[in-house]
């Protein structure tokens, strides 16, 4: 039974089939953002531009690909909400939501469908980041372990070299989480614009305000101060280079755990959003009854 339930969400999901089989225009209609393809390519531009000197200057800055990932993470906080924000709220505003809701698909299928179709729109972004980061890694010196021990502060124990795959994993699990967060707001708000703004507010809270406050409260060094940096995706990537160091914070999230938590958050948010859409007028929180009419 569990199997058939999952297959209904993915392989047997008519929304997904319709989006995947449809033209680019249909895909854009599903995420609701007309200029989303253009946005994706615009977002790719700085990554590509920055990668050119990094790839060329082989050996110059080891693990310079981390810089690329960090830039991508920052850009992503703006890009992903811009692709998804009107996925549901836009349908509501346009008046096409009822037409979709009256089709024989569950709200879970609609949400999963929209999420995956939107990720399909984001595919160039995902591919370009992966390619550029891996190129950057390949162009550089591979002997990182010896690099550290031969360096002037060789008193430090050798670090395990950071994995570019882990870095990409952190970046893309964050793509998913941000996408789900945006769809969540989109399905609970009446106006697409308020969904977009709410998402940005939450992302700024997670990535900037909360870490800042926590580090002010806790002061630098291990413990809470360290943890606070790792709450946001940029902080996670920053820590990527050094977090395996043994003298490290007693509490830290770590890249793998961050990935798991991000995916979990995405699933929970999407699931929550879906359950509120069962009957179109009901349970749409943040929308007063009068407005709903």
């Amino acid at each position, binding site marked *: 039974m569990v199997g058939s339930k999952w297959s209904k969400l993915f392989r047997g999901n008519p929304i997904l089939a319709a989006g995947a089989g449809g033209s680019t*225009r*249909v895909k854009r209609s599903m995420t609701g953002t007309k200029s989303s393809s253009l946005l994706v390519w615009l977002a790719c531009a700085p990554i590509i531009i920055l990668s050119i000197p990094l790839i060329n200057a082989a050996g110059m800055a080891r693990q310079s690909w981390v810089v690329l990932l960090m830039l991508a993470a920052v850009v992503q906080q703006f890009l992903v909400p811009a692709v998804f924000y009107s996925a549901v709220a836009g349908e509501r505003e346009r008046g096409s939501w009822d037409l979709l*809701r009256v*089709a024989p698909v569950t709200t879970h299928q609609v949400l999963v469908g929209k999420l995956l179709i939107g990720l399909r729109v984001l595919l160039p972004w995902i591919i370009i980041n992966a390619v550029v980061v891996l190129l950057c890694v390949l162009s550089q010196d591979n002997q990182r372990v010896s690099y550290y021990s031969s360096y002037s502060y060789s008193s430090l124990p050798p670090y395990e070299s950071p994995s570019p795959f882990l870095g990409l994993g952190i970046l893309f699990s964050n793509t998913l989480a941000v996408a789900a967060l945006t769809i969540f707001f989109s399905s609970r708000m009446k106006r697409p614009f308020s969904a977009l703004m709410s998402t940005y507010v939450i992302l700024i809270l997670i990535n900037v305000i909360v870490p800042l406050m926590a580090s002010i409260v806790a002061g630098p060094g291990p413990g809470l101060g360290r943890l606070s940096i790792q709450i946001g995706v940029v902080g996670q990537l920053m820590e990527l280079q050094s977090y395996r160091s043994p003298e490290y914070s007693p509490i830290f999230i770590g890249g793998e755990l961050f990935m798991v938590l991000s995916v979990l958050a995405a699933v929970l948010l999407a699931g929550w959003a879906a359950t509120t859409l069962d009957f179109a007028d009901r349970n749409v929180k943040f929308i007063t009854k009068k407005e709903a009419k």
Partner: protein
Amino acid sequence: MLVVDNLKKDYNGFQAVQGISFELEPGDVFAFIGSNGAGKTTTIRMIATLLEPSSGTASLFGVDVTKDPMAIRRMLGYMPDFFGLYDDVKVWEYLDFFATIYEVPPRERRKVIDNVLELTDLSSKRDAFVQSLSRGMQQRLCLARCLVHDPKLLLLDEPASGLDPRARSELKELILELGRMGKIVIVSSHILPELEGFCNKVGIVERGQLLSFGPTSDLTRSSGTTKHLVISTLGSPEGTLAWLTSQPNLTEARLNKDGNIECSLEGDDAAQAQLLKSLVEANLPIRTFADRRIDLEDVFFQVTTGAVN
């Protein structure tokens, strides 16, 4: 068969629909008439599985709307009163999208799309962008979308509002055709002449209650106890009118704008025959003596009190 049984909807204590019941057979075109705010949209949305009834049930061919909404949705086409289309897609892409969602097999999709385009007279617009269509065409496209899965029940909420007379009459033809195809069609409207002449069942709703329901012919025929008559005379009608006003079982005898006499007779067919006999015996110059055809508008004003929420 659609059975709606004592359907109620309560919005935070406000009873928008207060127990509506009716039954429709395949091929029925049902005019669901009521003023704004009468509860038409609420009723339709409950049947369309988009709104949960507070109580009561509706079932389509034995399937309950609340128990198996997915099965209902496969048999249902719903056109809301206000709707928007994805504006950046082409007509065929739009229909293909919904055909896929309704799980029309890929091999049949093209044929199905051609068929519904043909039926809704949009074949020439196949490759046009949806936003370039006129209001009437968008309405028909929305209807075409409702038809890709060959539904058994069509719920059309105020489909003719905002259409010009030509688009309106094209829509009328289309709805008639759908009825002939054996579908159950529910058409709601607050504009009466819009529905005149193409529905075989009528329901009049006011303040959430179905005041009257039945075949159009029953409702628009003079009812058993009151006969509505039109009498024309040779020459001046004054004498006949004076004679009629003096009759005890006749009410409201008056001249209409065509110069004919309209009156209502309290009584049955025998009383009507007797009246004609008396008129002739009184030597009045009667030229014609006929039942007055009453239209939906008359029925509507008779049945409703004009009270709105």
